[in-house]
């Protein structure tokens, strides 16, 4: 189609990013989010809604749960003949994680990047949740005649949060002077959303240069080196933004959406977020249920109290149980008389014996996958 000029690339997280607990079992892109979604549903839906119909999903480790989720891309509204959603693997696994860079992954699949007729690339992270019209961003990029356009989000809580994120330092013309790791010393920062738009040609050139420069170089690093040679511009993103870059940010990202207004900002009806259905039946509330300020996925049976929580698919909350400030992943059981607060409970876990598991929302706890506690 003539309008679809950009190849979509969904990147994996750099080696300094790690989500304790959950990431032992799957990549961040495959994390359950808000009960119903996976994190990667957001970047893929953003691309699909922006008429990007060739999407490459780069994967560094543990592909199992993503491969099944992504399938042929039909459920992401992608024509599987004229377009695709494709998993891209990097075969050579270096032992030292520092060597497993995005640049290496792209170069390993260069054939597939260069072969397409697309003139531009849109690169978005598979580990951040936000809504963005990439078609509009592409238009902005082309009209500005910049070499590279990057997306950032202005925040006023960079001291406490976004510790694994980078910031963009901008000049008065919104030109990017440099990228810098958030050092937690300044309140107001422009958090880099790890999102780029540029010509495909330039992208490939940068990859080659990065490789020449250092075998540990990432795309961000080479672009940082180019800030004064290239015209790199920042575009501000507004609306909901949740980078999933450590355990706390995962918990906070879910919790933030329990404010209905915030959720409605992310879930605009003209901008559907696609996911893969699990064919769960609706959720059943018993006479004993007390539910407040919570998102619940389908397939649950609720007999107890749920407050200020996100409840994943197929969970069971027994009568007399109290769930507060929690994120429950899929198929979690909370037994009778159990009081649980401020926990992330991973898939298939059963909490029945421990009658109290209480943590403050500032320091949420974690119950392991498949655990019975």
């Amino acid at each position: 189609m003539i309008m679809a000029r950009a190849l979509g690339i969904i990147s994996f997280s750099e080696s300094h990013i790690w989500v304790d607990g959950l990431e032992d079992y799957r990549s961040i892109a495959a994390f359950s989010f808000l009960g119903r979604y996976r994190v990667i549903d957001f970047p893929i839906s953003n691309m699909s809604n922006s008429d990007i119909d060739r999407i490459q999903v780069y994967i560094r480790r543990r592909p199992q749960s993503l491969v099944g989720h992504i399938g042929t891309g039909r459920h992401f509204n992608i024509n599987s003949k004229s377009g695709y959603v494709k998993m891209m693997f990097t075969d050579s696994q270096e032992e030292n994680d520092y060597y497993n860079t995005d640049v290496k992954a792209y170069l390993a699949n260069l054939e597939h990047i260069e072969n397409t007729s697309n003139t531009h690339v849109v690169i978005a992270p598979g580990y951040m949740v936000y809504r963005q019209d990439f078609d509009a961003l592409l238009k902005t990029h082309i009209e500005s005649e910049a070499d590279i356009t990057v997306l950032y989000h202005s925040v006023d809580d960079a001291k406490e949060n976004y510790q694994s994120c980078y910031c963009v330092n901008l000049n008065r013309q919104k030109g990017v002077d440099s990228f810098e790791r958030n050092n937690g010393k300044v309140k107001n920062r422009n958090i880099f959303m790890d999102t780029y738009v540029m010509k495909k040609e330039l992208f490939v050139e940068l990859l080659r240069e990065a490789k020449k420069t250092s075998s540990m170089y990432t795309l961000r690093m080479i672009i940082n080196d180019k800030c004064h040679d290239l015209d790199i511009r920042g575009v501000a993103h507004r609306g909901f933004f949740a980078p999933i870059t450590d355990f706390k940010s995962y918990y906070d990202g879910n919790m933030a959406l329990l404010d209905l207004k915030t959720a409605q900002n992310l879930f605009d009806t003209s901008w559907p977020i696609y996911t893969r259905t699990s064919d769960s039946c609706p959720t059943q509330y018993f006479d004993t249920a007390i539910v407040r300020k919570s998102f619940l996925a389908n397939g649950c049976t609720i007999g107890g109290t749920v407050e200020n929580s996100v409840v994943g698919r197929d969970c069971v909350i027994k009568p007399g149980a109290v769930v507060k400030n929690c994120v429950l992943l899929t198929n979690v059981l909370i037994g009778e008389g159990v009081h649980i607060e401020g926990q992330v409970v991973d898939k298939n876990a059963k909490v029945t014996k421990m009658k109290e598991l209480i943590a403050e929302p500032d320091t949420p706890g974690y119950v392991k996958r498949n655990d019975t506690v």
Partner: protein
Amino acid sequence: MKQNNMLAMILAGGRGSRLHELTNKVAKPAVAYGGKYKIIDFPLSNCANSGIDVVGVLTQYESVLLNSYVAGGGSWGLDARDSGVFVLPPREKADANLNIYRGTADAISQNIDFVDSYDPEYILILSGDHIYKMNYAKMLKYHKDNNADATIAVIEVPIKEASRFGIMNTDTETGQIVEFEEKPEHPKSNLASMGIYIFNWKLLRRMLVADMKNEESSHDFGKDIIPQMLNDGKRLFAYKFKGYWKDVGTIDSLWEANMDLLDQKSGLDLDDRTWKIYTEDIPTFPQYISEDADVKNAYITQGCVVEGEVKNSVLFTSARIGAGAKVYDSVLMPGAVVEPGAVLNRVIVADNVKIGSQAVVGSADSEHIELVAKNVKGVE
């Protein structure tokens, strides 16, 4: 070898006018049920789970939305290479003009070429307006084990209600059907036909060809084909079904079938992971229950936002209940909106209908369920 030797045909019938406005724009099988489903999801999911790959849906009324709903069969996994769900309205052929289906049997007769193109050994005839879970593969095994010419699924009904059904009188030892009575005044048994038949296709094909030419015939399975087979001394067997089964032909019965979901003992367990009911997937956020909501004894699906009180009710996709609203003993179809302070009692609110704020609809002691098919103005 692949056991793909039974083809299913769903009789989706005519308009279903006893469902009133609910079937104004859609054929009955496309009517919503149970929060996230449509009625036809049940026979289609039963087929998928029973290993049946090809399903014809016979309808002559408003096939467009039904067509786009089932097209390709992907929602039920019936989109594999040799699978498919096909809506079959009446059509013009080289040797036949465009004509409506004259009866249930005629609907099959007019599609003999479709069936033949799959060359099945057996054909399964289903109704499009029943809610139940059934393994047709087991019924087929029963059919084969009996070396039957036709097998009819039956369910036990209270004997005093038996005169409302087609009743099978069987040899109690073998299950062979000795007599069939359509709505008998004095029923001799309580085995009611569920309108689910397995036939050997070659035999049925011969009978349909003869029936098409018979000017006396009403071209109906119950009234013509089955009696004729018994007359001819064919081997007909009754396959006893135990479990939840409901005909949803009226507003009251549609409401009841929804209410049955709130009852753990009704026997219709949609949470059974070994026999899932598949349906169209719609992109909405998960259901949200607000700070001030009060939800008890309810069945609620994705996209709903509840800010008021919901008791003893079923909420379909993206229904919204405003603050202070009260929803009792009611069914809210997809996209229904109840504005703040409205009160609902014993109603079905149709798709996308809005109940204005402070409005009161339905009544706690009405004999029948009220269908609210048009927006209701709020009270100023």
